[in-house]
């Protein structure tokens, strides 16, 4: 494994991890405040991408980035106000079920409005090129801003790996969002009310704060964060109706691995899953190769050769769930979780 590949894989992994965390943070906030697992969270992520696409077509990407989160946030708040709050008295299972029903509806409506094909949602012109290029010469490692330098074409042994600007931009947005949410939660009055309502909703209500409205705000805010992730994720990857399901299950795995209701756990778990995924996708080896390296012979006649010979890149898609199972066996609380059960 060469250094440039390692660097780029790490950066790619971190960017995917940050994207996951944008989703996981909203989901965790909603879960720890309301005890509701928002099954449709990834659907709001998808709606964010689609709304941003439409706005981009009309008035440009930046407006899409700016307007899509509040629009989707309003949708989320409206859903909380008119549907979720109504079933709150029935208990947790109906709450989970109504968000499950919503995910069905959103999927169907998105297919209806925007069609079932993947959309051509691209980052803006100014962010389409590479941000920098890692040049690995036989004797040295160099960085160059912008597009690949001349060395790549002239020197024979040079390996040039580019890092797209939009990926970096996405990471920047994620970090910015993280910091502002953290400041909002810890430094502002409303943030303090939210934090208090997390643990002592009755006391907060007794002090004269409107806790249901705070819940609505948190739900709307969480969906807005999901939509922001959707704008970045949609432009970075593909904007298609299956994007919600693809990312939704992984985000759930992130939350369980990190520990239910723990923001720090969700952060570590998302970054870890992102990096693991990025390295696994690029890896060509299998378990059989690893066994060979430590001296255990694995041949096509060995029992379960099919399992041993599967390449890491093929397994990448299921690694989050394998990790989930392992965590549950060895540390049921999750990485940073405080409560069992």
């Amino acid at each position: 494994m060469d250094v440039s590949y390692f660097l780029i894989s790490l950066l790619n992994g971190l960017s995917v991890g940050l994207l996951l965390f944008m989703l996981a943070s909203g989901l965790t906030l909603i879960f720890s405040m309301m005890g509701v697992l928002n099954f449709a969270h990834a659907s709001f992520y998808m709606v964010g991408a689609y709304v941003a696409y439409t706005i981009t077509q009309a008035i440009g990407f930046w407006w899409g980035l700016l307007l899509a989160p509040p629009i989707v946030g309003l949708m989320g708040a409206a859903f909380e106000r008119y549907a979720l709050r109504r079933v709150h008295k029935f208990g947790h299972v109906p709450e989970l079920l109504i968000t499950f029903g919503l995910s069905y509806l959103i999927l169907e409506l998105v297919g209806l409005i925007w069609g079932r094909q993947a959309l051509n949602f691209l980052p803006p012109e100014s962010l389409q090129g590479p941000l920098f290029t890692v040049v690995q010469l036989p004797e040295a490692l160099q960085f160059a801003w912008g597009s690949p330098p001349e060395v790549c074409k002239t020197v024979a042994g040079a390996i040039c790996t580019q890092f797209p600007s939009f990926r970096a931009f996405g990471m920047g947005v994620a970090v910015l969002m993280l910091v502002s949410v953290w400041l909002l939660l810890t430094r502002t009055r409303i943030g303090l009310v939210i934090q208090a309502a997390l643990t002592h909703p009755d006391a907060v209500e007794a002090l004269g704060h409107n806790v249901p409205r705070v819940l609505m705000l948190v739900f709307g805010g969480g969906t807005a964060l999901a939509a922001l992730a959707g704008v970045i994720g949609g432009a970075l990857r593909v904007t298609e109706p299956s994007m919600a399901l693809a990312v939704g299950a992984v985000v759930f795995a992130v939350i369980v691995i990190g520990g239910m209701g723990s923001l720090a756990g969700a952060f570590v778990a998302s970054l870890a899953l992102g990096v693991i995924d990025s390295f696994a996708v690029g890896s060509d080896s299998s378990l059989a190769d690893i066994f060979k390296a430590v001296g255990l012979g694995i041949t096509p006649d060995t029992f379960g050769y099919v399992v041993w010979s599967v390449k890491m890149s093929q397994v990448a898609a299921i690694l989050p769930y394998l990790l989930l199972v392992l965590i549950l066996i060895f540390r049921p609380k999750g990485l940073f979780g405080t409560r069992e059960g």
Partner: protein
Amino acid sequence: MTALQQTGWADRFRHINTGRWMVWGGYALVMIAAPLLWKSSLSLTMLTQMGISIIACLAFNMLLGQGGMLSFGHAVYSGLGSFFAIHALNMASKGQITLPVSLVPLVAGGFGALFAVLLGFVTTKKAGTPFAMITLGVGELVAAMALMFPGFFGGEGGITGNRVQGQPFLGITYGPQIQLYYLIAIYTFICTALMFAFTRTPLGRMLNAVRDNPERVEFIGYNTQFVRYFAFIASGFFMGIAGGLAALNFEIVTAEVVGATRSGAYLLFTFLGGAVFFFGPIIGAVLLVLALVLLSELTQAWLLYLGLVFTFMVMFAPGGISSLIMMNLRVASFGKLRPLIGSYLALAGTAATVLLGAAVMIEMVYHLQLNEALGPVMKFMGASLNAKGFDTWFGACFVMLVGLVMFEMARRQFVKEWGRTQEEIERLIKQREAAT
């Protein structure tokens, strides 16, 4: 003397619950008579599938209704059961193992239970919301693995088999669909009876207790995790049987039987039928097949309708259809149903109006989206509509809005009357208690 004898007789038969015998007898009778009433091959196919999904939905409800566990990946157990069933069938037809076709579902059930033992150990570590998330993850895991090992799961094309094999037993070859129907009917009846019996076992009762108050169960000295685990295994066994029957029925098993869509369908329809009562999932299973076979033929927007119905059901009647039935039976048993009939008719009429307006608009949108090549004119319930015409949109909108206003009026009237009826019933119950 004779009087004494008579009471003696009555005592001897008191433990036989006539009502229960009638219900179960009627259930068996319906299953025996159904293919004689609906003879077309489409209805026979649907009846067969209904039997399978009844087992699956009831098994699903062992967790959802009786244990309060919401599984998002329960198709894993029926799906893996299907795969092992089709492999067992193929091995039997090659002569590698001796296995009568009628017993293949039992093999599938065994494997369903085995995987429930393995995977359930992980999933049942948690209850409530985390349980739901973990089942989803495990479901994704198995679904992804199914595509990873084409040797066993058959890749995109799936695995095919042939249920007509071996020596005919009493002339039964399972060649004609009707023979398979009766096999499935027998399995369905026995499984329903077993699952009902399960609710009466100490384990079944503890499962209810774990659902309602896990903390207290722990204090009594039970391990809630193991109660959930055992129930999960039992549920996995019946899911496996349903999967095995499905493998026999379709004679092909593809990777989508373990997928999230299938799990979602079980969840959705079990809930629609009603998780609160034991018989609810049976209604749900019948609806599942009707929706999947008939509704999907009738309209392209069926998933949207399904989602809407489901969402409204969660919001307004979280007990599902069976709870609606039981609520009205309660009213009827006090003889108060007749005054409500007028309101019901008003509700149904106005709701149909809303539905008509909304359906016209939904169908027009779908038509524009999916069949644009066919031009803007489409057929809806025998009438041809111009999906791009202002008048059709205006008309549909008008019908829906008028329907909405009238529905709201009818609903308010109904809520008043319903409340009054309930109060009267409460009063009657109190009077009876006072009288005794």
